[in-house]
């Protein structure tokens, strides 16, 4: 089947079998490898992408289902909201607070954080924990991930309230 999906603001047109998941479509058809497969049965969250602004698991969506939806992957996450041009505030905070080790769950964590901070600009640590509870990280024990997201939230709210947006 020929399908068209908006990924990171590009219209991707590819011929795929209906059985191809959005995860495999992004990785194999589009060639963006930043979205990772951890379990392929919906439990680990490594494959998380943004669909119309909300975090979803790309292994639990068929590519054909997402025709008409707007998908953002880790590669596109800084395009809408980039201060330095390279990394956005959340990515920067993950670097600074070392919210990762092996980096395998990281894309999913960052996109989940994106979705959270869009609707809750000043979450408590508990709210952050709840929001990322569907993303398993085996390396970090989550503490530095929560630190990263709290730092990002703080910076985002400061940026949003200060008149000078630099």
């Amino acid at each position: 089947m020929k399908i068209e999906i908006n990924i990171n603001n590009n219209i991707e047109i590819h011929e795929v079998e209906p059985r191809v998941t959005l995860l495999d479509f992004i990785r194999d058809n589009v060639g963006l490898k930043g979205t990772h497969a951890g379990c392929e049965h919906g439990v680990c969250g490594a494959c998380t992408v943004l669909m119309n602004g909300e975090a979803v698991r790309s292994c639990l969506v068929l590519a054909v289902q997402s025709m008409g939806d707007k998908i953002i992957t880790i590669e596109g996450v800084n395009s809408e909201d980039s201060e330095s041009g390279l990394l956005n505030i959340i990515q920067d905070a993950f670097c600074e607070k070392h919210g990762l080790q092996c980096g395998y769950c990281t894309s999913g964590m960052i996109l989940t954080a994106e979705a959270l901070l869009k609707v809750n600009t000043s979450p408590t640590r508990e709210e952050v924990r709840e929001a990322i509870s569907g993303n398993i990280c085996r390396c970090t024990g989550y503490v530095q991930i929560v630190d990263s997201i709290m730092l990002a939230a703080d910076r985002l709210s400061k940026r949003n309230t200060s008149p000078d947006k630099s």
Partner: protein
Amino acid sequence: MKPAPFNYERPKTLDAVCDFLAKNSNSLILAGGQSLLPMLSMRLSRPSLLIDVAHVKGFEEIKKIGNTINIGPMVRQSVALESSVLKNHLPLLIKALPFVGHPPIRVRGTLGGSLVQADPSGEIPLVAVTLGAVFHIRDGNDNIEILARDFFLGPMLTAMPSSGCLYKISFPVSKYSKIGCGFHEIASRKSDYAFASTAVQIEQNENGKIETISLGIGGALDYPQVINISGYNEKKINLKLLKELISEALLNIDFVGDFHASASYRKRVTIKLASRSFSDALKEIGYI
């Protein structure tokens, strides 16, 4: 872990859905896919056709008509959580929904999908049973109505005809002035499928008299069930009495046991959680 091949259709009307279902004996409806996709990927389910009902007209609506709340099967769990109609009239459902998986699951997962999936630990089936929901199903040209408590037959087993499509879920709106509810469950990790869950709704008339008490239990049995609590009418209700009544009502019920949680454990926990749910419900109506 890749699905076996299948075809895919995306009909826009219920008629078209039923047409596909009738013509393809090995077809399955795809709603949010949060239960179906893992089954497909593990090849535990092998349909030849998937009928995506996400774009069927009216399937995403939530409407109050008279004393009934009608919910389309494609209403996403995350949307339901934010619905003001549901917040006003079905607070028990609102209490239960945050226990369904994690936020990203609820963004895609639907109410209809969860009901037809009939996981013994499903929170939405439990609420449907507890509140006396009615499922409207189209099978070919036939419209069928099935009461929630007649719908669930066993783990992942329902009275759904193989070529049926759930197109509407109706919940009765309480006719009493005050309702109180409580929902508690316990799982190994916070968001796992529950070992035991309990849903309680209490209705009170304008004179402060308790008119109905509904208790549903899930997770601990093969399918969610309503437990008849009797013997509260005559006496003033208190938690101690309720706990006794619950224990009595559960006496002859067989609980499920596995390596995650033994049957005896599930039973004790059900009693404890039911008490907590009752306590919440009674507090909400100012009774205790």
